[in-house]
């Protein structure tokens, strides 16, 4: 990996994320008499349900993308994009490609004809190696 040259923090891996619901945030409250107070609270009522749903949706999107990559409908970039909680607009801004080019690169045909240096830009953003970018099952095969 090319991490050594860049002191980077690790990018989010939404596929393997473990959501910690115990993060405390200051909350304000009002009692029956109309007095206001504040306290550090973990929960505001339905935290678990809503958070679970939002991560469930993310994981569904990733699984769907993974399936489509395997059947050859879209390129691996789409899978890594979902995995890092990124969309086409953000990807375009971080890699420097125009939006329409990123959209194009999601097509497997165009992905195959991409130059190494352009692939490297994606690999750098996703913080993965070249073989991983070309084959999403690279890690599981190697292990």
């Amino acid at each position, binding site marked *: 990996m090319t991490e050594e040259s860049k002191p980077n*923090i690790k990018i*989010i891996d939404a596929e393997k994320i473990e*959501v910690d619901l115990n*993060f405390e945030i*200051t*909350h304000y409250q009002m009692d029956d008499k109309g007095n*206001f107070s504040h306290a550090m609270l973990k929960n505001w009522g339905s935290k678990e349900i*809503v958070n679970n*749903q*939002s991560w469930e949706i993310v994981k569904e999107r990733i699984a769907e993308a993974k399936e489509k990559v395997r059947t050859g409908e879209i390129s691996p970039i789409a899978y890594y994009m979902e995995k890092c909680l990124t969309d086409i607009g953000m990807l375009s801004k971080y890699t420097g490609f125009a939006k329409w080019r990123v959209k194009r690169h999601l097509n497997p045909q165009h992905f195959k004809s991409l130059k190494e240096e352009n692939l490297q830009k994606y690999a750098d953003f996703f913080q993965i190696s070249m073989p991983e970018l070309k084959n999403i099952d690279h890690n599981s095969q190697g292990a």
Partner: protein
Amino acid sequence: MKLDFDNSQMSAHCESGVIVNMLKYYNITINEPMAFGIGSGFFFAHLPMMKVNYSPVTSFRILPGLLFSRACKNMGISYENKTFRDPQKSMDELDRVLETGTPVGLQVGVFQLPYIPQEYRMHYNMHSMIVIGKENNEYLIADSVIPGECRISHEDLMRVRYAKGTFAPKGKMFYPTKVPNEIDFKQPVINGIKKVCHDMLDIPMPIIGVKGIRYFSRRLRKWPTKNGNKIASQYLGQTILSLEEIGTGGVGYRYMYGAFLSQAADLLGREELKEISIEMGNAGNRWRDFSYIGAKNCKNRSEPEHTYDDIADILMDIADKEEKVFRKLKKIKL
């Protein structure tokens, strides 16, 4: 070097927390609801054309940076507010200001911010924090949402200051240049209240203020027929998250603003403000109902427990309640 900075005060919202902590450094004591009210951060806007997390954006506060500048203007504090095109220049300027013994506020993106838990690192570019010192290649950060002192390397700080996407911070930094020794809060509080009344009632756009809540209610009613139950539930979940969790102090600042109004009543010696603060709190209670009932629909996405009409009705009720509050506030001669 490190400034003698007290960051033990925790806050619900990052930007009002920045104001509280920064003024404390200049020996002015102010609490979070007060900072939020004087900066008139209370707001509502529903932006269906803007998508975050594949869902439309609902905002409960004003644009990032505005809270600080409004609060400073109201309290008679001179301040500097800068953005930079060149990242290197922005870092040099940060060092220079830090050397003069001034804590510097920064707007940063959360996506690549190292000290925040992973699950909160969304593409969210409106986070504020204060730089309070530099040691070797590391900056010391006072973040009012994270307890304790945080450290971040030069490169990482540069990266988060130039995070990309909606509301990109563009290296924005802000710091007070001249702070009066003492501040009389009476006039700033009045100005703050008037500004919020204007924002909530008088901006001639259907997506903003009290009208915005009604607009949101109409949109929400159509979600299941237009997009299907699954998408509707996703949108609703995202709205509830931004209502309750993304640094709002609960129910989109409504309780916090109620706390401000009740403090303003004591400060100005006006009993009617106390009654209005309770009404504000009641509007907050209704927002809590909204999040509670809405969350039930998120349990099983394809089969909602409550109809979306019910939820939209709650929103209509909220809009009426808040309109009443601000009409009353506007009428009072302060």
